């Protein structure tokens, strides 16, 4: 395993400690619950927005705690939903009279932990709701009742509710907004390589030199199918073919287009993908109103990318455009 790591068991806490050391004024770190929270949270005049999930998806979610984004994140270990207790304790710490919104990507483990955590917090009189995100079209909704996964599209939901909550929206209003954004968001991912969890020390699957995993998730699990590696343009075309008809996105629509790197792919390649996607959408009469090219939700060191579309309306556009401040500064 070629990684910057000390004891693999300490990987997540050491990362969180680093994050806290780098942001002493804005973030607070509570080691007992892997909790990263805004130093000024909870606030009485604001619903607290919380996300948890496994680790290994950085910058999601611990590195997007900040003004206009998350009030807190409580990650579990690498690719493992946080234990229910973390959710419960986090919810208690973030309790605001206006309520707590728990954002959950749709996975069995996450849903269970957050449902149980919510129940326990509610039983103590805390106002708390759960919003589930499920944007991955690679998983067919009908076949498995656990349904679609939540992947990089998660960013748009959290950005929108983060902005709205900053502007004073109440819990029900945030549920409305988040649900609406989730409903118009679709993603699809492709992996060129497997990722290596520090504790495992070897790649989660083997891919041939000319193979890709098509319809991959963000936890190193294999994808929908294995395909031959093709050109960047052909891969984008295939991703669009999976994503566009699903909502569907139609000519005349204005969209946000995200090319999300999965961790090991350099941003130069992401822009090569972006170029094709933008052009192909234009050919279908779909206008890219907002563009996002970077790492948003990764799968450790996996080389690969996902494509996300969000159908914009004025409200979503405005919320996505709102200023936000997070730990992951580039410049």
């Amino acid at each position, binding site marked *: 395993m070629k990684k910057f790591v000390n004891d693999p068991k300490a990987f997540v806490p050491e990362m969180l400690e680093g994050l806290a050391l780098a942001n002493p004024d804005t973030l607070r770190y509570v080691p007992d619950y892997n909790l990263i929270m805004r130093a000024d949270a909870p606030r009485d005049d604001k619903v607290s927005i919380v996300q948890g999930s496994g680790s290994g998806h950085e910058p999601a979610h611990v590195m997007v705690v900040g003004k206009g984004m998350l009030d807190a994140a409580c990650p579990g270990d690498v690719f493992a939903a946080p234990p229910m207790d973390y959710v419960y304790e986090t919810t208690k710490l973030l309790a605001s009279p206006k309520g707590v919104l728990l954002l959950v990507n749709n996975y069995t483990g996450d849903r*269970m932990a957050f449902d149980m955590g919510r129940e326990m917090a509610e039983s103590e009189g805390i106002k708390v709701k759960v919003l589930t995100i499920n944007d991955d079209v690679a998983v067919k909704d009908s076949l*498995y009742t656990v349904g679609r996964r939540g992947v990089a599209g998660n960013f748009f939901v959290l950005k929108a509710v983060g902005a709205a909550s900053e502007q004073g929206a109440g819990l029900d209003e945030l549920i409305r907004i988040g649900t609406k954004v989730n409903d118009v968001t679709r993603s699809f991912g492709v992996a060129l390589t497997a990722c290596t969890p520090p504790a495992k020390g070897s790649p989660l699957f083997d891919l041939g030199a000319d193979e890709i995993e098509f319809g991959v998730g963000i936890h190193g699990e294999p994808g929908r199918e294995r395909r031959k590696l093709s050109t960047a343009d052909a891969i984008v075309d295939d991703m669009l073919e999976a994503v566009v008809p699903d909502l569907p996105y139609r000519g005349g629509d204005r969209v946000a287009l995200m090319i999300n790197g999965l961790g090991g792919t350099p941003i130069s390649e992401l822009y090569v993908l972006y170029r094709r996607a933008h052009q192909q959408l234009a050919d279908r009469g779909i206008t890219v109103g907002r563009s996002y090219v970077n790492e948003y939700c990764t799968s450790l060191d996996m080389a690969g990318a996902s494509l996300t579309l969000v159908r914009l309306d004025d409200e979503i556009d405005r919320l996505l455009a709102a200023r936000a401040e997070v730990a992951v500064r580039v410049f």
Partner: protein
Amino acid sequence: MSSDALKQTELVVRTIAETAVENEKYFGDLDAVVGDGDFGYSLARGFEKLLEGWDALDRTDVGTFLKKSGMTITSRIGGTSGPIWGTAFLRAGIAAGDSAEISGEQAVAMLRASIDGIKARGQSDVGDKTLLDALVPMADTLEQQLKQGRSVADALTATAAATREAAEATKDMVARRGRAAYTGERSKGSVDAGAMAVAVIVERISQVWSR
């Protein structure tokens, strides 16, 4: 079971915990095939915590002991396994209640309570390619063996064999729950990590019991 039900419960729980810790890599590798490889790590870290706090666990009665164990597990194990395994321990503890002695019949009832808890928590059932596909045959065999008047040790030996067979049989199933389900038909051809963990654990319990 016997009048020292608590001792035996402790033995079983401790064996589960130690087996989970010792098999971290094996269980993780099983989960890596069509899952995300964290199953072994999650179990090992959680049960490590249980062992760390072992002496301080409330031993008022078997029920309390199991419930406290379940709470530690739920609070410390992440992923799908935390809630699933925690629920199993909690439900077994509730089923045991404050009875000082645990009959064979009651032990099976506790196991059934665990299974029902997992089904409810996981919205899953036999045939979904999960640990239930090992647990249910395990409970069936144990019940049958005890009803036939076998000693606990003999019953466990037979149960361990049946459970392994059941776990192996998950190989031909298509996953309908958990992360493996995302791969659809590709989940065929490898055993379910949770089911195999149950098989390995029962084998260990059977061995330890006979000593």
